[in-house]
């Protein structure tokens, strides 16, 4: 047993630059995989966030908007009761013209569009939370054109753009991860073949002296697994750095702030990291095993 570990680490050391290159490639591949997973996670989060926020907005017409601070007028109360009775709807909330203006000021604080909007141009709104956010269009159809209603907007469609952006990011990282994984696989497989090749005389002699196949080959397998594990750890480290120095800045930058929720460190360490470790170890082992079976005859 001691022999086996000694040989494995001798193998890694003997060819240090190769081992480093192999580890880096594996790490980048796993890192990209992790980035893809984070993107998926963020998409889920964003969907959660927006689905709880997303509502169908029933904007009321000018007279009602101007006169009704608490939805006590018969028109507004009627609409609200009807909405609340609808089985598609899980909740209804009234936002008066003044409340709407406050929210508007909050969201667009410091931006020039603020100067263009006055309270009078904003309608009062009934914000309808859907039991099933996907069926907002039914509410839109039902309430459009009803007395006291200015228009009905399903917010879902506007969020779709954001999702398609995040989807693109996810696809790009996964695509790169796959190509890079191919390189990592080839590298691991290759390093093993090379280890075996450079040591073929040695291993051949060992076999002639009576060593078993297992005895001579396990060191190569260990080399592969160690690579996979170290790669996963480095990938996680890289993602942590990437999160701190790139993602956090990007998502708190004003262009994307408040549209995409920040990526939490716990997502990274509790969800992505374990996946990377397992994937790294399993793939390295399988690659190593397959390589030894297929290519290493001695």
């Amino acid at each position: 047993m001691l022999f086996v570990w000694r040989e494995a680490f001798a193998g890694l050391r003997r060819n240090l630059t190769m081992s480093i290159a192999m580890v880096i490639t594996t790490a980048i591949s796993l890192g990209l995989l992790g980035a893809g997973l984070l993107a998926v996670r963020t998409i889920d989060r964003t969907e959660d966030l927006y689905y709880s926020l997303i509502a169908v907005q029933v904007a009321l017409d000018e007279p009602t908007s101007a006169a009704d601070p608490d939805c006590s007028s018969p028109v507004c109360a009627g609409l609200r009761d009807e909405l609340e009775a609808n089985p598609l709807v899980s909740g209804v909330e009234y936002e008066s013209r003044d409340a709407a203006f406050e929210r508007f000021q909050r969201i667009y604080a410091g931006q020039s569009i603020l100067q263009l909007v006055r309270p009078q141009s904003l309608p009062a709104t009934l914000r309808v939370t859907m039991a099933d956010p996907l069926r907002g269009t039914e509410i839109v159809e039902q309430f459009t054109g009803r007395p006291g209603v200015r228009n009905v907007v399903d917010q879902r469609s506007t969020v779709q753009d954001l999702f398609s952006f995040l989807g693109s990011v996810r696809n790009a990282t996964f695509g790169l991860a796959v190509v890079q994984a191919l390189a990592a696989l080839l590298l691991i497989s290759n390093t093993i073949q090379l280890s075996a090749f450079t040591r073929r005389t040695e291993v051949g002699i060992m076999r002639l002296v009576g060593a078993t196949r297992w005895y001579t080959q396990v060191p190569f397998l260990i080399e592969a697994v160690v690579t996979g594990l170290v790669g996963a750890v480095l990938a996680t480290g890289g993602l942590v750095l990437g999160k701190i120095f790139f993602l956090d800045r990007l998502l708190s930058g004003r262009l994307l702030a408040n549209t995409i929720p920040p990526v939490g460190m716990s997502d990274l360490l509790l969800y992505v990291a374990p996946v990377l470790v397992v994937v790294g170890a399993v793939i390295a082992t399988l690659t190593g095993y397959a390589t030894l079976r297929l290519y290493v005859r001695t």
Partner: protein
Amino acid sequence: MIRLENVTKVYPTSTRPALDDVSVEVERGEFVFLIGPSGSGKSTLLRLLLREDVPNEGNVWVANWNVGRLASRRVPRLRQRMGVVFQDFRLLPNKTVAENVAFALEVIGKPRHTIRTVVPEVLDLVNLAGKADRMPSELSGGEAQRVAIARAFVNRPLVLLADEPTGNLDPETSTGIMTLLERINRTGTTVVMATHDRQIVDSMRRRVVELSSGKLARDDSRGVYGTGR
């Protein structure tokens, strides 16, 4: 101990068989010289005994193993009971002299402390006690050959195969090696030795098996090298 039954071996890239219908039997404890001109098939015969290659026809028996038909995973056990000295030494290049000899013991799972006592003894026997920590590349040809012999003998094999073990040695050292092989043989180990050394064969007067172009040409129980030259 060793039995070849009508063994024929043809290498794929070769037209002429390297061994052609050879039948020989060697009893336990015998000492056999395998002679014949260059290319007559001596090394090939030894390779078949060690399962480095398999015969195209016929059976090769070593102890109770049908060597040619042995499952690959059984081969290590066979080899662990045999000792081999190769024509080109085949020492492990990254291990010292002592480690090379120790390796044959590690492979059969001998405990550390046994290895630590047995290896120096054997190195002493082949007159290499002072060179235990040399790397193979730092040895002269004859020294390397003696390391190979030490490794082949250290685990007390049933059979010891030696392919021209004195090829690179001066007459004196050769005599030393032959004394060593005789001693090993007296402990009950069957020895098969391929050689070109007329003097050794003539002086030892042991069984001589001669090959010629892959065919068995002679099998004398107390033979000499021959009449040529």
